[in-house]
């Protein structure tokens, strides 16, 4: 049972996952080459403020995404009453190592896409642009995840509907932009399709799948995750785009 449980973790992170190990390896290689080239380019143009800015934002988003993935994943792993600290640590890191990096990358992509899309559409996001609101958004997102794990519902449909309402409420409370909604939906659809593929290929599985191979609340989680990360990304873009003055004290 415990082994099964460990396999049955349900990913709550807001991004895609890589599938099978081989595929993963090749993909990782590809990604690494892309990343190195990007890094080289970036390094070459480090004096270019915008590139440096972009990289910094990406790094922050990556960290946030990876951290949230780690924490929320932990939230979802059914726990035992743990006895020994070393075992807790093994539980903490026993889940597949590739989840946090993947989620982090996804978060970086989504979080950079949001402000980019905003600027392309020419409608800068003005609604509640402040860190307090962003923090509130993250807290609600963690709360939605918490609820998806802890609440005992009669059936899955009810749970999914509740979570869908919650994620829509999250969007309405913190975003309210059409582009945010569209991108959130896109993220949710893509990520869900991806997880479907993953589960289909047997990378992992869910305890009681009710939406093809995955839980039906997964898209809601992805949607709210997309909105949350987008919120962070926009805030970062707003904060970091201001020129940093050398003349500022120290």
């Amino acid at each position: 049972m415990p082994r099964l449980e460990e396999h049955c973790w349900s990913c709550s992170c807001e991004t895609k996952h890589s599938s099978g190990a081989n595929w993963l390896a090749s993909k990782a290689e590809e990604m690494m080459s892309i990343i190195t080239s990007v890094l080289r380019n970036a390094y070459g143009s480090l004096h270019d403020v915008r590139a440096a800015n972009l990289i910094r934002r990406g790094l922050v988003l990556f960290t946030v995404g990876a951290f949230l993935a780690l924490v929320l994943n932990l939230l979802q792993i059914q726990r035992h009453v743990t006895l020994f600290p070393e075992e807790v640590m093994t539980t903490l890191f026993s889940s597949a190592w590739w989840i946090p990096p993947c989620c982090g990358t996804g978060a970086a992509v989504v979080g950079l896409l949001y402000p980019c899309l905003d600027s392309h559409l020419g409608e800068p996001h003005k609604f509640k642009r402040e860190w307090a609101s962003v923090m509130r958004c993250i807290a609600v997102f963690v709360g939605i995840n918490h609820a998806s794990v802890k609440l005992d519902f009669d059936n899955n449909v009810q749970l999914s509907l509740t979570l869908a309402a919650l994620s829509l409420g999250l969007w309405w409370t913190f975003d309210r932009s059409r582009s945010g909604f569209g991108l959130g939906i896109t993220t949710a659809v893509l990520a869900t399709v991806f997880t479907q593929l993953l589960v289909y290929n047997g990378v992992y599985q869910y305890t009681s799948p009710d939406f093809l191979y995955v839980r039906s609340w997964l898209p809601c989680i992805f949607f709210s995750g997309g909105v949350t990360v987008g919120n962070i990304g926009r805030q970062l873009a707003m904060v970091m785009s201001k020129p940093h003055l050398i003349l500022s004290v120290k």
Partner: protein
Amino acid sequence: MTLRERLREKISAAFYRHGLLCASYPVPIILFTSASILTCCYPLLRLPLPGTGPVEFTTGVRDYSVPSHEPQGDLGERPDWYRGPPVAYIQQVLVKASVSPWDSSLVPVDVFRSPLGRAFSLLEEIRNHVHSDGSGVRSLETLCLQVTDLFPGLRRMQSVLPEHGCLLVSPGNYWQNQRELFDLDPDLLKTIQKHEPKGLHTSATLRDLLFGVPGKYTGVSHYNRKRVVTYTITVVLSSYDARFLGSLRGRLKQLHPSANCSLRDDHMVHVHFKEEIGIAELIPLVTTYIILFAYIYFSTRKIDMVKSKWGLALAAVVTVLSSLLMSVGLCTLFGLTPTLNGGEIFPYLVVVIGLENVLVLTKSVVSTPVDLEVKLRIAQGLSNESWSIMKNMATELCIILIGYFTLVPAIQEFCLFAVVGLVSDFFLQMFFFTTVLSIDIRRMELADLNRRLPAEAGLPPPKPGPLRIREVPPPPRPSPHTITLQTPAFRNLRLPKRLRVVYFLARTRLAQRIIMVGTVIWIGILVYTDPAGIRTYLAAQVSEQSPLGDPGGGGLAPHLGVAPVFRGGDPTSALSIHPPPDPTPVPENQSQGHHGAAQAGPLPQASPPAVPQITWGAEDEEGWRRLSFRHWPSLFSYYNITLAKRYISILPVIPVTVHLSPQEAIETRHPQDTRHPPPSIPKVSADLQTDLTLYKVAALGLAAGVLLVLLLFCLYRVLCPRNYGQNGVAHGRRRRGDLPCDDYGYSPPVSEISPLLLRGHSMDIECLASDGMLLASCCLAGQIRVWDTQTGDCLTVIPNEGPMCGWDGGYGAAESGLLGPETLGPACEEEGGGGYPLRRRTAPTWPTLFNDQPDLTPLIDTNFASQPPSHLCTPPRHGFDFGGLVERAYMEHEAPSPSAYPSPSSASSSPASAAGTQAAADGESSVWALELRGNLIAAGRSSGKLELWDAVEGSLRCVNEDGGSGITALAFLNNRIVAARLNGSLDFFTVEINKPLGLLQYRGAPGRGSVPPSPCYSSEDVISCQLTRSVQCAHQKPITVLRAAAGRVVTGSQDHTVRVYRLEDSCCLFTLQGHSGGITAIYIDQTMVLASGGQDGAICLWDVLTGSRVSHVYGHRGDVTSLVCTISCVISSGLDDLICIWDRSTGIKLYSIQQEVGCGASLGVISESLLVTGGQGCVSFWDLNFGDLLQTVYLGQSSDGQGVRQLLVLDNAAIICDFGSELSLVYVPSVLEKLD
């Protein structure tokens, strides 16, 4: 009036009255609120304290039956967890064994070897015990808890704990319950010790598990003085069978009678365990709390403009927290017991309730006019926000109600708490927070008024003296061009946050203290909890030396254990606290203790009594209490059975007393046992060992503490490289008092912005104009100088005397001598016809050096100089000397007079300015407006003349004298000049250049890639200035402001209106009405953004295309002196020395900066986020995003009282500001690369 509006009005009125009430009686209301908070929180006292300690319940054994699942109403004492069968029944067989009589031939190992050996036979006995009666045959196998396998990952336990079959635990498990292994074991203690975990441990150890009594009571050691070994055999039963247990008890008692045992055996204790929070659960919880604190931090840092920021932030947090407590308390009061984990849902509740309302309230109250009475301010602020507050609350309640109807119990409970929390939060906001806010505002009012009174009194002449003195924390400027922060008074708020935190830490030495205290506590804990540490040592000492002697040697035991909450009065347990000590063992122990203490040295063998006495005390009755409260959960968790939220029943122990004869002990000896050294040496070494461990621990702790302190010290040095409290290297030569440091003694690093002083004018600078490359300035003496903005060189000087004298009778001798009257005279006289060719002058004094200057750039509006200088006058001298008054004075006198000259210097009694005024009077007309485009300087004079000068050569190119009224403002755009006159008329001139096309030169200005090259006027051209249209009654009153950009000319006047004209055809497009005072400032830029500020302190944003008003805000108490817009915000400064930053799209005030008195009249925006303001002899740079003061650049030493009145931002990120009779050119180097 719709229902909605009526409702809105009613709510607003109610809030207004409420605000009055709160502000009027702050103290009673706060008392009332505190009382109601306490009342609502009172029910919380009845809730069990949160914790994971187990709870107990005691029942009798005789009438015990397994409790049913259904709750039974009649048993009030019964806790609600006592339902259904327990996880297991625990039957302990407590064995006390000793070798008696003791003789000197025995070695220390004998103390426990043979007693432990007896465990195997007892185990056999228990395993094989069969009870048969009429209902059948029962053995242990049928009753005991069958376990399957150990929890994976416990490989090291495999050899010790039973892996299948009955869960039966005894010390025999060390040897796999096999007597042979035990007999062959050369060193029992080593075997036992082998399984002990290293280091500090908190949960139950294997030794505790197997022995069933805490390690130090077992007596299994070489230094056991009492020679009594205690251990238990623990049998875990899955079902309760009274008869089987009774027969087992009887059998054991029969085999091993305990003579003086009086243990009660009629009570069983049920222990209920709570859920333990593991690290896996803790991490998400901690994360949510971190997010919560970040949220609170980011929310409260927005509180601004109040007396005590931290106080209000605290009040906000208290409001939210106590509303939560109140909600829990109220829910408990009405019989709803919380089943959710409070710590888990708490952050979400806070997030749902939120701090927004509190902040909105604060902001609203703060943005009310400052001069109102406090209670009116509070009332007004409340009523302004009443509608949105009510709307938000209704929305939230609706959402929560929807959540309530999901019919999921957990959500319902959450929603219920949230609803009650919201309502109580609203209550607290209205009563508690509002009152606190009113108190705070009142405090600020007093402080503010005290500070502000002189400026408000507005009596300029007598004031300067005291004012100067009061201002005097004279900005210490050790050297002229260093950059220092301003006086401490308002720098406190402006420091970057991180610096403030670091300063705070450094000032209070908080980190050191916390770490020191932490280290001390840690060392204490280390010493205390170490198994070989001070606790056991102390316990041993106490038990040895107390004269009464402590039966069992464990006097501290009941108190050291985790005190369980005892539910259900248990008479026996109450009795057992005061056990009647057996009279016989006490003296026995006493003598024994005394012997041990007295003769610890050479001959310990002789001292012990011959017969070790086995005693049974009350503490043995429930010996399991001395174990860790994690004992049972650990044992069960090894078999993957959780005890969380379940309970076990502990049956009364079966006492077994075993006396062994010395022969028996010797027989069971292992050959190696005798090789152990005699006990005397271990005795000494035992103390020594204990001491050594103690010292080791102490030394280690000390070393760690020292290391930590050192680490902290390093960290501190890294964080705060500037040593405070003593002069650093950089400032070693300065006196402490002179240091430009802040409250905490930190000096900011000196960076390298130094202003370039442009000297040359003899009097105060009057007008400034620049086109990026060149800078034209005009002083009171009428002298116009042209400077190169790149190098700061003075290129041309156009003296006033010549033209001044010349105006009277055609042209003066000096001028005509140079220019030749035959050419200039007709040109000027016939300028109505225009285009009269000007002969190129051949004067050698002004060579044609710069004939290829770039022309006006229509994209950039830099016509600052067209503003009458009166608008920029410094309030410290004229508290109310704003442009309007001056203009009114002009209007009254119609003719300019020296006394009404709109310069602050004229009012002062300095001889220079008096001379200047005199000169102006002599010359009859002075320059009131100046514009510079390309090579041409357009100067508007008080006599109504418009002159065009060549900037490079200093020659007069053209004069137009059409208007009779003085030119108050000029705009020069493309080839058109717009002049606003004192009588309210507006003249449009066209500058025509007659030049061969081939000579048209184009040049791109360096550093301005984006600006297209523009044609420039060369000195060969013939320039004529033609009046194309004159709008006679553009305004009813004098025009005060004139701005032109994007093909529009905007004028503002004393008659409260703003007019927009099209530049091409001089057609009036709109008349904008909305101000209730004269217009004092206008901003228009290429993006057609129009902002206007008036004497009423209002700022209006207009849509230039439609002429509609976009927003209208009141920001200042007094005139708006200057207005600048960036893409996202509008920046205004007023006579109240406040700089306000507004959101351009919404018109909401983002924040405001309180400047020193008389500072903030001139403004400039360098980049999107860099604001520069002029102050007293300095310019300050601000970060627009946060309102932080970045730097202050002092312009010179002799700057006391000299304010910067005009400030011009050039394209190359240089700032030009006037500074008395000097000009200052400040380069902001780092901004250049940001301008892309």
